[in-house]
């Protein structure tokens, strides 16, 4: 069968066409996939439930109707931090949004890789509650918050704990679990137990070495600790209240207490890398994340508290995930300046002295 004349393509014409296509793609004038490049937002975030919920509550219902396509780039925070740092020299990075916690932001701000935010582009920014010092950071738009509570299994821990110091109680020896990736917040908690502030590293070190004598069990991740709680390998730890609520929902026999020493605030949110390819898209995402409907969705599905004052959370749910006025008085902010300057030193101490068998 002969090819119709109109469809016949000489080798030269095909090569010219391919060259033109490649050139146009390189110049960014053609979409590589799906939406045009200027309507695509690359969201770099943790994977798992959090990423799924970002799609469920932000990407699909809020941004898609406005023509935005959000592409998730999912990885652990350490990998994403390393990638953002590695891309610092490039004129165009590969992500428009990086999801970080407050302590990550402090570290990344010191490395000068984040864009200073223009809050006039965020109509919802005025609703952000000013409980957290990180909310004042010009590089960070908060999304959700929780607090570090004492979590215990009432079957294994007979005396109801009142503070983080329960982990240091010899009566609880062999029942305490520590999560390796929570080294920053655990060190801050140790500083509070020693009567210091979250950035009192010297006090924290002494305190952690005391805890080491009681031989706590180390777990690589929150999930590994959850499994150990489930099998009753351990029965006492410190954990985000939101996580505790998730594990309670999954049937774990655990209770939580707001520690007398202080509730270390966990705030996670979004930043824009300095070399983000699509700034307009990035700002659209930040603003969408502060929508009351989004904030309410995360409270229901994930147990984290809204960071905006106009979100409405049902009283029963608020009682489970939130904090009473008295507990709110216990909220303390992480020492971000300390994190920016001494995070590597902290990790060294954690690995070489505290964690080392």
């Amino acid at each position, binding site marked *: 069968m002969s090819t119709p004349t109109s469809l016949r393509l000489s080798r030269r014409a095909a090569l010219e066409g391919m060259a033109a296509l490649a050139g146009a793609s390189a110049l960014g004038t053609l979409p590589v996939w799906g939406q045009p490049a200027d309507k695509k937002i690359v969201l770099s975030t943790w994977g798992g439930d959090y990423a799924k919920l970002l799609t469920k509550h932000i990407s699909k219902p809020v941004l898609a109707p406005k023509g935005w396509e959000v592409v998730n780039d999912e990885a652990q925070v*350490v*990998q994403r*931090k*390393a990638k953002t*740092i590695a891309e610092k020299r490039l004129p165009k990075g590969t992500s428009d949004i990086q999801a970080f916690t407050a302590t990550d932001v402090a*570290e990344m701000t*010191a*490395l000068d890789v984040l864009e200073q935010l223009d809050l006039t582009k965020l109509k919802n920014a005025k609703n952000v509650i000013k409980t957290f010092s990180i909310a004042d950071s010009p590089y960070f738009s908060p999304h959700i918050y929780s607090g570090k509570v004492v979590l215990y299994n009432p079957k294994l821990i007979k005396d109801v704990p009142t503070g983080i110091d329960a982990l240091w109680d010899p009566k609880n020896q062999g029942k305490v679990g520590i999560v*390796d990736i929570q080294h920053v917040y655990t060190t801050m908690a140790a500083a509070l137990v020693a009567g210091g502030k979250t950035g009192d590293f010297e006090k924290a070190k002494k305190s952690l070495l005391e805890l080491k004598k009681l031989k706590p069990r*180390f*777990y*690589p991740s929150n999930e590994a600790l959850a*499994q*150990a709680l489930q*099998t009753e*390998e351990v029965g006492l730890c410190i954990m985000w209240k939101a996580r505790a609520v998730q594990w309670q929902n999954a049937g774990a026999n655990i209770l939580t207490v707001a520690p007398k020493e202080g509730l270390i605030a966990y705030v996670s949110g979004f930043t824009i890398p300095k070399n983000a390819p699509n700034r307009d898209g990035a700002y659209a995402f930040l603003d969408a994340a502060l929508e009351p409907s989004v904030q309410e969705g995360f409270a229901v599905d994930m147990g984290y508290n809204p960071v905006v004052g106009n979100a409405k959370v049902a009283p029963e749910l608020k009682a489970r995930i939130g904090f009473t006025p008295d507990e709110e008085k216990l909220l303390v902010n992480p020492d971000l300046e300390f994190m*920016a*300057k*001494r*995070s*590597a*030193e902290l*990790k*060294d101490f954690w*690995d*070489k002295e505290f*964690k*080392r*068998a």
Partner: protein
Amino acid sequence: MTASAAADSLVSLAAREKRGGRLSTAAMLIGPATIFVVIGLLAPIVILFRYSLNQFVPGKLMVEALTIENYVLFFTDPYYTAALYRTLRVAVIVTALCLVLAIPLAYRLARTQSRFKNLLIMLVVLPLFVGNAVRAAGWMTVFGNKGFLNVTLQSLGLTTEPVVFMYTEFAVIVGILAVNLPYVVLTLQSVIEGIDRAVEEAAFSLGAGPFRMARRVLLPLALPGFAAGAIFCFILTMNAYATPVLLGGPQFVMMGPLVYVQFAAKSNWPFGAAISFVLMTVTLILTAAANLLVQRRYRS
């Protein structure tokens, strides 16, 4: 110039052109792979080595310098040298166990006349279809406090309390062994298949028993191949990452995860690069030494 001299020079010219043609064909054939290796491996190694001579200043990531302080830190800090010794120990144990387990299996596979031979080889290859992390997750269900192993021990009345298997060196060795074994079996099987069955039969006909035949005939002939399998296993273990992290836990530090922590968790690229080079150099030296030793033994 005589006619014969002219003819000779024409012949040598033609021979040179033929040689030149063969060389250019060879260059074209090996060119793409060479370029790929240079760009994808050698260039990053050179960059990494340059990084390892820089200084780390918290908050600044990397400061340009020409210093060996990162290497000095590694060899003077017992935490890091302990990680290196631990990695070497695990690599040697896993390699030895792999050989012990792989040799009989590979021999049987190589010599079997069964029509199911391909199926048996597929069974050996099958674990490679599952990723390391997934396999480690499987081992976690075996080694946990309420895992298969502990439940079995307790139901048999051998133990009353759970035995700690998870986050131990034992768990890491078993996990890496399971990952590496198929590679070693396949390497050894192809080596044994290359040895003529007649030489074994000759040994038997001269009165040698199976062990004597294996020691005096099979082993010397297969030694270079066995060494290749062992070196392969050793290198894989030295650079293991997922299994030590998932089965070794936070307190069992091997070199692969140590490199990752320096780069990703501490943003200390110069030291991470230095550790990478120490790991690479130690692996290369030991591999080369083993190779030399085997070659000398083989020749003798």
